[in-house]
């Protein structure tokens, strides 16, 4: 699985759309996964100044992300490969690791 960044145009005045879109993205990814195309929606980051919203996905191929975006009814956007650094360990993580090891 690779990481992909979907870049969407969202007008500044439309900040509510981001949450809606995120919800739809999550659900669409779950649907697709259930149907046999594993896609995972991770999170969205909205930059109002650029009127751009970045949606982070994990999938096997770029077409899967495109399909998920379409299913979610998200407007046409640019999709690029991304590389994510591991997230900072949270307290839960630490406990898990401690328990496992």
């Amino acid at each position, binding site marked *: 699985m690779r990481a992909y960044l979907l*870049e969407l*145009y*969202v*007008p*500044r*005045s*439309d900040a509510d759309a981001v949450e809606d879109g995120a919800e739809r993205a999550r659900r669409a990814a779950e649907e697709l996964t259930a149907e046999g195309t594993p896609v995972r929606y991770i999170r969205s980051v909205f*930059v109002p*100044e*650029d*009127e*751009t919203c970045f949606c982070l996905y994990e999938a096997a191929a770029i077409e899967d992300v495109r399909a998920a975006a379409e299913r979610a009814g998200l407007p*046409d956007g*640019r999709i*690029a490969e991304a590389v994510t650094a591991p997230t900072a360990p949270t307290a839960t993580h630490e406990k898990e690791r401690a328990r496992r090891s």
Partner: protein
Amino acid sequence: MPVTLSEAEPRAIGREAELARITTFLGRARVGALVIAGAPGIGKTTIWEAGLGAARSAGWRVLATRPAESEWQLPFTALTDLLAEIDIGEFQDVPAPQRDALEIVLYRAEPEATPPELSAASVGLARLLRLLGARQPLLVAVDDVAWMDRPSLGTLAFAARRLGDGPIRFLLTRRAGEQSELERALAQIRVEQLELDGLTLGAIRVLLAERLGLNLSRRLLRRLHEAVGGNPLLALELGRHAPALGDEHDEVSLSALAGAEDLFGDRVAALTPPMRRTLLAAALSPDLAEVELAALAGSGVEAALASGLLVAAGQRVRVSHPLLAAAVRGRSSSEERRALHLELARSVSDPRRRLHHAALGSRGPDAELAAELADAAAASLARGALHDAIELAQHALRLTPPDDAALPERLLSTAELLVAAGELRAVTGLLAPRIHKLPAGRPRARAHLLLGEAATFDAHERHLELALGEAAGEPDLVTAALSAKAVLLALNRVEEIERAEALARSALAAAHDAASPAAEAQALHALVWARILRGRTFDAVATGGYDEAAAASLYVGAVERPLAVQRAWRGQIAESRVLLGRLLQVAEERGEARSCLVLHLHCCELELRAGDLRAAAASLEAWEGWTADEAPADVDTIRSRCRALIAAVRGRPDEVAYWADAADAANAASGFVWDRLDVLRARGIAALQTAQLPRATAYLQRVWEHTSHAGIRDPGAFPVGGDLAEALIALGKPHDASTVVGWLRALAEEQRHPWGLATTRRCDALLALAEHPDETGVACLEAVASEYSDLGLHFEAARTLLAAGRAARRQRRWAVARALLERAAVAFDELDADGWVGVARANVGRRESPRRGGLTDAEHRVAGLAADGLSNKEIAAHLMISVSTVETHLKRIYAKLGVGSRTQLARRLTSGEGSTSG
């Protein structure tokens, strides 16, 4: 009805917030005009068009025009565009003279012999817009106000100033920078600005993707966005320019290309010569029809349209964006342009535009073309398009061969047009170097008359003399010169009125020789003014008939105007008001700007005599509305002079000083002695108010002496006689006062002058009181006050009551004094003359017997303010004293009046019995 943007509108990417503002603007009652401003290419037109769509969907009526950027426009093009869909039926309710003017201007009717008053068309437009707005909400929309042709802009601005509150809105776009005249005119109905900034990175990305299918890397996108500052047009241009931009290594070329000004230039340079020529032709000719361009460029037109360089708008074509047009023009040589103008002259169908192209395409002198241009100038003038006429006339002049017989006439008519437009420096520049080349006699006389109008006083008089020298045997010119001399003398210099009258008589004789009604009107105008200054009546019948219908305009021709002013001088206030009101109505209906201007001024002066300050201020404001086209120095002088007099009647010496100084400063440029005298009058009244008697006498004496010396015999023209006598008596110079009164009496009796007679009686009473202070004198003054009141001269009445009260007080007849002073205070109060109210009340306060309260002036002031509810701190601030002083005063006040609180104080003061105020 809520206004929304329809779904069908082409999506304005990245402009959601701005579009929301448009819908708010259309839905909200308060704001009258929205101006969309921003750099070229930023997307103003897109928003503007969305606004139009939204308005139409919401049931508004939309009048729109999109002036094209070009060096020249046919006059009134924009206005014609705006009113294109309005048919004859809707004009019906506009009064006839205004409607006719409007129809001529819109090319729907042929002009008559005399050009319509431009302001008539403007007034008509205002009326029409109000009528339309009453039936349906109205939106007047202009895209790129800066390129509106000048006559349209002037007319629309004029109308905009007169629309008031109503369902008429304006939606304008303009480049960033200076406000246009239209916006200034709209300032009264609340203008909001919508500044368009660049699009965001995200929006630019979408724009490039949707329009050009470009899918740039983030890095490249960032660079591009930065390079164009978010400007959508430039972003598209840059995107279009470099199709290989998908490659990251092309960053270098991106920066090189991003010098925004060159963007279009490079595109132009990359065009084929035939394509460039096609574009240039469109750029040089506003409102070019597609067929006309095709005649020049053949199939190139289709190619240009296909590539988006040209856009079609109905049957016309225009360059797709002004920046592109500017680039095309900028990269052409003047030879190329000249050659194209000649070709355009051949292919364009409208004769006016054809002529214009021919003029721009011509190289050297061309007698035939010059003659055509001269005729076109006359035709344009007949339509009321003064500035277009000037431009055509200047072309005609330029192309007239130096030895052509028509040259002198063309020179003079161009100068006449420039005078009419108020471009006086241009007149001097045009005629002064060429006057000696003109043939002697009539042409040179005309030249001198024109140069005179453009010059200062002294130079004007010299030119008039020279004109008379050349004008022998040309009675109409003699009339013009003599009339001008007479008016200069009487109304501007205010000197030698008798000579002015003689000059005017000679002018009239010459006018009869010329058998010209226009000349006669000119001479009569000068004569009437001179006569009324001499204190004589004017009998139209006796001077051999005056035909009002023949008078070209009320400004010059109507004899009623000076006669109405004379009534005001004589103190016949009601009659004067009626006459002026009637004249004003006619002038407004005819849309005569000059006449409305001067009539409002006369009304202000009249109301100042009556003492009705509110009416005077209202008239002055109305006067301001017509001053747009006048020379600023003249406007400043008159405005300041009127404000000084208003302040004097109001009783505010500081304001008088302020405005009087301003008037004198402005007067340095304009030189009108009339205003200088009125300013002295204002200063004199202010000095009288503050009891600065030597100063008051000095000011008033100057006016008195100047006017006597000049031969002005109507004592009401500059009504200082009464005040001067009063000042002299108060100074203890009854003998000097008697001289003044003697002269005043003689004039008043000779002319049966109501104001003069009343004032003489007032002065007599004051003189008698100076000798024998007794009841009779006071009773006389009371009677004179009634006389003034009956005439409508309420300010004089109040001042006479004040004098009576003071006289009674000097005789220690307290009750009578208080009653009279109270009446004076009430009378001043009704006029809003608060400064004088203070004077009257202060006089009441003085020398009150202690049993009756006995507050000093200072205590009285403090008591009044305290009773009005002001805190000690506020009183201190108001009177510019310390708070502790206020407290001390209040302690004493309470003690003297026997009260213990502010409430009791207020009750005591308003109770009337033993009150120190009213």
